[in-house]
């Protein structure tokens, strides 16, 4: 099975959030980056499928040079090679534009499966995988927890709302977006880290992939910190004082105790 995993490098969850000078994104100075959480699960699913059925896992990521570090980490966990769509200016693209780049980068690979995380922890659009399926004219399923090979295709477990689930069968090649949490993520071994250094990372630029970038139809105009119209009453003091104040509130104002 030949599997492509599209992954994204995102700011760490506890990164300090300050709006940058242009007002269009956060100030990335001093921000640490990590692999997007649901993409980590997509990678894990891909590696498990390869272990079960053989084949190849190819990591695909778009972004500036620093993304190379996240790609190496994925290679260290066991991916075989990588494609890096290198661009310092991905913010100029909308979700369709990014998906077009990714589609162009993998079209000739003829993979059996393309996996990606359900959504990114930074922009949270939750669309890249589904758009990719449409652009490549492949069937897809989203919010996937389990993948099983069946004759002619795959059977997946899809999460629905309110604790409901559903099995869906689809032919391969197909695109799946993976929900977090179903398997235990592996760590890179020392041997894996060593091997990753010699694995192939093919770098391509947007210009090489598409003759001309299309004008985005959806534009992020401005970011701003949420309005602090806080109605919450912050109880200060030492932990013991704050706790005592809260018990008072819950007893006499909320009348819950």
């Amino acid at each position: 099975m030949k599997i492509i995993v599209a992954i994204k490098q995102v700011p760490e969850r506890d990164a300090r959030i300050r709006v940058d000078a242009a007002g269009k994104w956060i100030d990335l100075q001093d921000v640490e980056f990590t692999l997007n959480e649901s993409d980590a699960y997509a990678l894990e699913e891909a590696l498990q499928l390869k272990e079960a059925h053989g084949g190849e896992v190819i990591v695909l990521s778009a972004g500036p040079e620093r993304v190379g570090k996240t790609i190496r980490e994925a290679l260290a966990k066991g991916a075989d090679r990588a494609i890096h769509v290198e661009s310092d200016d991905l913010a100029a693209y909308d979700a369709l534009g990014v998906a077009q780049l990714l589609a162009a980068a993998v079209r000739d690979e003829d993979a059996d499966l393309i996996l990606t995380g359900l959504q990114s922890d930074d922009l949270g659009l939750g669309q890249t995988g589904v758009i990719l399926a449409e652009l490549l004219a492949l069937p897809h399923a989203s919010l996937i927890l389990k993948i099983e090979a069946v004759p002619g295709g795959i059977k997946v477990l899809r999460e629905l709302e309110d604790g409901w689930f559903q099995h869906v069968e689809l032919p391969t090649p197909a695109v799946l977006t993976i929900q977090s949490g179903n398997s235990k993520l592996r760590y890179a071994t020392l041997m894996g880290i060593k091997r990753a250094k010699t694995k192939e990372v093919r770098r391509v630029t947007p210009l090489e992939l598409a003759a001309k970038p299309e004008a985005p139809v959806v534009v992020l105009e401005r970011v701003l910190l949420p309005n602090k119209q806080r109605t919450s009453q912050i109880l200060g003091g030492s932990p013991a004082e704050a706790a005592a104040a809260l018990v008072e509130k819950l007893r006499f104002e909320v009348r819950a105790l």
Partner: protein
Amino acid sequence: MSNAMSSVLVFLEIKNREISRISWEAMAAAHTLAEGHGLSVDVALVASPGNPIFATIHGKAPRTVYAIDHSLLHDYTADGYTAAYAQLIQQVSPSYVVFPHTYQVRDFAPCLATRFKQVLISDVTGIETHAGAASVAPTFIRQLLQGKLNAQYHHRGTGPCFLSIQAGAFRADAAEAGATTLATFEPRLDAAKIRTKPSEPFRASAQTVDLSSASILVSVGRGIREEANLPIVQELATALGAELAASRPICDNGWLPMDRQVGSSGQTVAPKVYLAIGISGAIQHLVGMKGSQCIVAINKDENAPIFEVADYGIVGDLFDVVPALTAAVLKGKG
């Protein structure tokens, strides 16, 4: 057939044989948009025209209600819905297409938008229209970085603008009388082009914990760091006579069973008191608990979005605050 670029088309969703609450909210969002730009609102849903559900459509009256009727739409598939909806959009030619932001919509709407060379603006929490300037494009607000940042988006270009509306962001409109036409829309669908085969939905396990009946919930999130730390919140729950609940990562890690999960993929709760401990307050969690009568947040990050919905907050290390709170509760009882 309506004039080009003159309407807002809202796709409603049925859940448990009713039009879902989030669908009414999406309809209210559509009216906000329509009023700002002098547009009509049409709604559509997949159901036979004889379905009694059409009699339940309320709120501000839409101009037309489309009953999208086809045997291949009885079970949801992305291929079937994308094809059917695309045909209705081509016929109605709306300037805006509005969806409730549900798991189902997330599964097909990005495909549908792509078919029109558009991009879905997903998970919209606010719409700003510009009074007296209907020709000025509206601003759409959505959250980034798990609610730590808001972003303003604009749609450019001439095609329809696709939006999905987050749960709880708009209040469903009160019913108003008005003339509505019910029209049947029969899409042309080909069974051979529906590539996925869905099975019947099922519930993984019988729910053993009904969080919705608890009057106090102590809910724990990522801030607890490891499973071995759970007893400190369990002790607080016991002292309060509360049920223990959790945000998604805790259940994903298997530290607490799935049936204790609160949020869009777990249970929706509205207890008398909801204590959010070490929960930052991503929107997927907030939609499951923001109806609680009193929300208490304990978090070390004073900028955590959970404080935006909390009535009382304690900014501090939960490993100090929670044991102190347990002691204070027990002391009060003694």
